[in-house]
Every structure is written in C-alpha cells, then in structure tokens.
C-alpha cells in the first residue's frame, strides 16, 4: 500500500479523533472538594456559646451496609482526628467553647461520611424528620428547619458536618439541625486529609453568620 493511501485516511481518522468530545481535566476538578452549606436563617448563631464534638470518632453511613457504623482514629486510619480537630479549631476561632458532652453544651457537632448515598439529590423540607444517625446517648431525632434543593447527585462519598441545636430541644425530644456542610467527593480525592481540612475551612468561610 502506498504512503498516500495510508496518509489520507490516517489524517481523516486523526481529525475525527481530535474533534471528539474531550473529558474535563479530572485532576483539576478533584484537587478540591465541592463545599455546600445550608443553614436555618431564623437562628441567631451569636446566641450560643458552647459545643461538644467527638475527639476521635466520626460516623459512617453507607447504603451498601444498612447498619450504621463509625470510623475510629487508629494507627491505620488517620482521618477522623484531623477532620474533627479542624472543625473544632474553626469553631474555637469563631469564639465558641468546646465542652464535654455531659457539660450541657449548646450545640452538638455531628461529623460523618455518607458513602454511596444520593445525598445531593434530596429535596429537604422543613420539619422533615429523620432519626439521628448515631446515638451518642441523646435519644433525639433531628430535623432540618429550612427548605433546600440540591440538584446534583453523589453516589460515592461526602463528608458531612452538622450543628445540632441542643439549646432548643422540642417537647418530643427532637433537635434541630441548624447548619450543615456537605463536602464531596471524599472517595476521589488526591490528598484526602488535606482536602477535607481545606473544605472544612471553606465551609466556615462561606458561612459568615456563624460567629459569637
């Protein structure tokens, strides 16, 4: 076969390939988490002073495993503690004081990872109740007081931080989720711990109403 006969269809093939749809640069997109925050605009965040947060355990919810579980800081898993410490340091910097759960805190800070769960496709309405994902001995359910719509889907994993209002528990023992931050995707990160910490910082930066 002559060179010309190879070159002509070859050039056409290359042009066809070049004109095909390129994928977005994944590395560029995955080097930081998407940070989505929601809050109850009727709440005055300056009216609270103390909070409690776990020191080395975060929740883990997966629809692959219907039994809720936890992630514990171990020598093999160096994720919970840096994440929890970063949440706490942000709250400290904003003027809130960390106390032990038994010291009657104003807020409980829930931190958990949701795996393979369509969290971002939910439409959440006020007074939508769901059972608290793990007990911590409170015996409360919790609910969102603000409507919001998230139009994107997560089938992999998100880090979630919530502020639960323990100061205003309802008569039927429900606690209100007054602020939440969703950070994803934690399963496609380049540097999981660093990106999670940066995302937590960003969650508080874009929530200027949280301060003493």
């Amino acid at each position, binding site marked *: 076969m002559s060179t010309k*006969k190879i070159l*002509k*269809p070859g050039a*056409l093939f290359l*042009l*066809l390939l*070049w*004109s*095909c*749809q*390129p994928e*977005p*640069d994944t590395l*560029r*997109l*995955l080097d*930081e*988490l*998407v*940070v*989505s*925050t*929601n*809050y*109850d*605009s009727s709440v005055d965040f300056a009216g609270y002073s103390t909070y409690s947060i776990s020191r080395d355990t975060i929740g883990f919810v997966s629809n692959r495993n219907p039994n809720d579980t936890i992630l514990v800081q171990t020598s093999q898993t160096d994720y919970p503690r840096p994440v929890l410490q970063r949440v706490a340091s942000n709250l400290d910097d904003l003027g809130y004081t960390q106390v032990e759960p038994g010291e009657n805190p104003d807020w409980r800070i829930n931190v958990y990872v949701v795996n393979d769960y369509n969290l*971002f496709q939910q439409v959440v309405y006020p007074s939508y109740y769901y059972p608290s994902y793990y007990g911590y001995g409170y015996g409360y359910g919790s609910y969102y007081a*603000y*409507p*919001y719509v998230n*139009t*994107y*889907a*997560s089938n*992999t994993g998100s880090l979630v931080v919530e502020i639960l209002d323990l100061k205003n528990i309802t008569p039927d023992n429900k606690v209100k989720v007054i602020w939440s931050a969703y950070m*994803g*995707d934690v399963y*496609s990160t380049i540097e999981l711990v660093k990106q999670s910490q940066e995302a937590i910082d*960003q969650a508080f930066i*874009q*929530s200027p109403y949280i301060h003493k």
Partner: protein
Amino acid sequence: MLLSGSAFAQESYFYFNWDVNVPLANTSWISSTSSRGAKFGFRKFIGAERKFAAGLDVNWAYFQEYKPTETFQQPNGAITTDYFNDIFQFGLAVSGQYYFPVADRERFFPYAGLGLGASMNAFSTSYNIYTDEESSWGFLARPEAGILVRMGARRRLGLMAAGHYDFSTSKSASYEYDNFSNAGFQLGIMIMQL
C-alpha cells in the same frame, strides 16, 4: 475508497473539514474558541453551468472552559467549587450555494450559500465528580462563504475553506441561553466529481 462511489456519479462533491468556532452568545458562560469541531457534507451541482448546488451538511463542535473556584450564594447557604462549562453542538442542515463565475471553472469554485436545519446544544457543568446537564434542539440558520480548489483539472481531490455564522434558537434556561450563535472557520478536503 469510502469517499468514492455511486454518489459521485453526477457533478457533486463530498467534503470533510476541520471546523474552528468562536461562541458569540452568553460569552460569560463560555467564550473560548473551540478547535474541536468537524463538518462534512455532500453537495450536488444543479445545471450544466455549475452556478448552483444543494446538499446536506452535518457538523459538531465541542466548547469547553475552565472556571476557577467560586462561591455561589443561595437563599439558605452557599456552594463553593471550581468547574468546567461545556457545550456539545450538533447540527444538521439542508444548504444551497451560489458559485461565483471565475476564469478557471475547472479548479476554483468560490461560493456563498445558506444552510437551514436543526441543531442540538448540550450544556453541562462538571465540578468534582458531579455533572449537571441540559440540552435542547432549535432551528438552525447558517450563512456560509468559501472556496473549493481542486488539486488539478483532472483531479478529484481538492481543498475547501469557508467561513460561516451559525444561529440556533436552541435555548437553556438554566445556563441563560436565549439562543446560541457562533462564528466558524472550516478547512479540509473535498472530493469532487465533474
């Protein structure tokens, strides 16, 4: 090869071009020039003087632009992310051309024409692993002017260059497009049967 055959038994030509496009609508969403496009078609001359031709054009183009990290305020919160905006454009048009008379009518074919048809635009935003998409079809109008140059008076193979303006009524409420328009330049090969 695949470019020859019974379709060329009469005076006609087939072309396959690289198509570079500049978006003109809602350029705050995407303004980057797209070099990822192609256009091909078949056109048949009408009449012995080869003054007119009519045919079918198919084209596609892919526009993409990276947007650095940004915070979007919402009624009860905010979202922060960096993202890519993308548009995939596909068009199908019936077209007619007028060929200007020149001295060498065996090799040079300057022309102006108009294509009318339909186009589809798929708009999408990609952030982290997530993607939002919306697509719509619209009416397409495409004025075009260009030139065909055969390699020799007895050669089928030639080059084609043209400029075009595409206007489509394809809309996207989510991405604030009332219509879509772009200007393009195409360059490539054509196979002519005279």
